[in-house]
């Protein structure tokens, strides 16, 4: 009996010693689901798109991960290809498990700016629009980068040094800063050191004339460089997904997604609005320019918009919409007509609620 009692732990001990090559205690590791391969047939043809907007030289950028996994990777689809197929972009080395977000193409479409984040950490990158291109770090911390081409033709990337700030209001001088960093227009390499734009974090980009910045989330604002004034938009109501106008003349406008409840926008009824039902365009005087109700633009079965983003063609924006708040379709919406066109084929492919689509028109305005 005693021999048996000693034999069992002795055998176990031997087995344990043999297995000690990699440490004898369990060590948890980070859980990362590998990036999924892109679908072969997930998007409509360029010819179909051309019937909607007159062009098929259009590129869609978005992030995607398997449902429930918060480690998205960036993809792009070129609708001028005979069979538009998503192309996966490389993630920064060591950041495979971070959340790649908000791809923004450069004015010529050769580069993409985006940021990755994990918790409160964020890094802004620039990358050539090529599956083999290596990400170039622009800023750490860096969030919500956008391109800006100055009158001299120099290319800059604007970014904030904090991500996802949700404090209720911005003050005139915060510890969070929006910078601009010059980059090489061909390869995206940094040139010189960043310049401070304003001591406030702005997430919605800079207007074409360089005069306005916009931001959103807990409070939406448009900042006017001409007189350093801060204009509250929809004051007291949270907003989502801010993006500045891409028009070269009407530059003092921003687009955002609503939060539920009564809105505080001039010329818009004060009745309550359901969550993410509306995409608004508002100017710096907080006056309504356009409003897009998801049930009017699409149909009554659609529950919400997500992630609207003004296209480089100022007559269009890209947005997600869903009937079940689990699977989302990608739409291109024409602002002047209020008509929408779905870019994906739902039976083949749908995205997540935070897939941040951007539609880039190679020729700019049609």
């Amino acid at each position: 009996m005693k021999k048996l009692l000693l034999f069992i732990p002795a055998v176990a001990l031997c087995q344990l010693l043999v297995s000690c090559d990699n440490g004898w205690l369990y060590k948890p590791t980070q859980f990362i689901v590998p990036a999924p391969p892109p679908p072969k047939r997930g998007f409509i043809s360029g010819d179909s798109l051309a019937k909607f907007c007159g062009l098929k030289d259009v590129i869609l950028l978005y992030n995607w991960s398997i449902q429930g996994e918060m480690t998205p990777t960036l993809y792009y689809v070129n609708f001028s290809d005979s069979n538009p197929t998503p192309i996966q972009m490389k993630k920064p080395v060591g950041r495979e498990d971070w959340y790649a977000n908000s791809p923004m193409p450069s004015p010529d479409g050769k580069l993409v700016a985006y940021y990755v984040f994990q918790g409160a950490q964020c890094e802004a990158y620039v990358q050539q629009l090529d599956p083999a291109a290596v990400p170039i770090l622009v800023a750490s911390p860096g969030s919500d980068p956008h391109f800006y081409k100055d009158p001299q033709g120099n290319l800059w990337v604007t970014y904030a040094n904090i991500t996802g700030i949700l404090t209720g209001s911005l003050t005139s001088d915060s510890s969070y800063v929006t910078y601009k960093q010059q980059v090489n227009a061909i390869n995206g390499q940094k040139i010189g050191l960043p310049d401070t734009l304003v001591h406030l974090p702005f997430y919605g980009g800079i207007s074409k004339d360089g005069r306005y910045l916009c931001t959103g989330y807990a409070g939406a604002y448009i900042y006017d460089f001409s007189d350093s004034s801060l204009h509250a938009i929809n004051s007291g109501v949270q907003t989502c997904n801010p993006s500045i106008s891409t028009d070269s003349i009407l530059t003092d406008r921003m687009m955002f997604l609503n939060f539920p409840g009564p809105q505080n926008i001039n010329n818009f009824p004060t009745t309550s609005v359901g969550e993410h039902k509306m995409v608004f365009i508002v100017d710096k005087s907080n006056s309504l320019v356009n409003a897009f109700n998801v049930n009017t633009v699409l149909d009554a079965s659609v529950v919400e918009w997500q992630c609207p983003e003004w296209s480089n063609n100022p007559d269009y924006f890209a947005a997600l919409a869903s009937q079940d708040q689990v699977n989302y379709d990608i739409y291109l919406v024409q602002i002047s007509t209020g008509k929408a066109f779905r870019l994906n084929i739902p039976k083949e492919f749908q995205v997540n609620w935070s897939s941040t689509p951007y539609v880039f028109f190679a020729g700019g305005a049609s």
Partner: protein
Amino acid sequence: MRQQNRHIAIFALVGGLAAAVIISLTIRSRQQAPSFVMATPWACVGGCGAGGSGGAGGATAKWIGTNVTGGLLDVQEMYSSTATKKSMTNSLETRLSFHPTYTSILALTVPVLAKDGSMQPTTAADERTGVINNGMGDIRIDFQNAFGVSGEFSYDFTLSIPTGDYAMTVGTDKSPQYLPTNLQLGMGVYSLTLDLGYTVDIDKALLLVDAMYSHPFAVNFSGKNSYFPLYNNAEAWNLLSADQKNRFKYYFKPFGENDLGAYFPPSITLSGFYGTKELAGFVHSFGLMFSAPLGVSWIPGFDATTYNPTPDPDNQAWTATLCYGLEFSRPNFPVFVAAYVPIHSKTASATNAQAANPFDSKPMAQWNAPDFHDILHRWSVFIGTKTTLF
């Protein structure tokens, strides 16, 4: 060799040794029972302080004092209040015990917890205060036995069973967030603890030394992780490695990883207590407990829609606890009060050492100097009674 096999080996080793000790000592104690005399009949130490590796439960105190005798069932009630900078835990533990043999005790401990604290998933979001959680914690079953010529040695096996809720959330339906581990009611894993004790009986005093090893492990009777049914998504499931799949489909894991991804490493604890009853009717006790986890604990991601555990930046690489207890030694209804003050290694979150890479557990495993800023911001007080029934 695969890691899974290694863990089975560890568990077999611990289990085998435990079985060997129990069986051999039980045989010996039966043989010696007729002439056995407890050296310290006024010391009740085992079980009172044993069990688990901390985790979500409140603190437990080691009752050192006289014993109550005469009934079939002993009942102990211990109320405790444990404070930290960010939380307050009140606990009432009911311990029912009886003596299967002259030298042994079998006990069931049922804790009821009330917790109040705050949480802040990221520094970019506002701190959520007034987070309340209450209910039953993880129950414990322990078996202790004294042995040796005069009963100066003891062993105590404690099994902690995950009856406490470990997946409580707050937030909206669309964006639920898990409460931090210290505000949950349970660990979500089992834990087996072996406590070996040695008692030196001095005239009207007692010196007690204990060595304890706790080994959490996971059992899932359904075989499936019900919180993250990734196996229902064939696309994702097929991308996973075999080790990754084991997090979502398993019946047994020989380590303490629960279904949310929280991991509780094994731990060792060494303690020494000195008790004296020089003053008639009272037993004073002073003690020092030192414990260290054999690894870094991991916590679930706050976002309850995503399986994303991370190393715990508040992981304490070592903890030393100063203990004082006072028993009012009434024969049938003693009362015990105690105060514990822990001192711990400075954590990664205190130095912000994890900021560069929150998944790198090395800063959390680092043994640092004491965190002097946290001393007396953590403390526990206890008050307990015991009696005997039937």
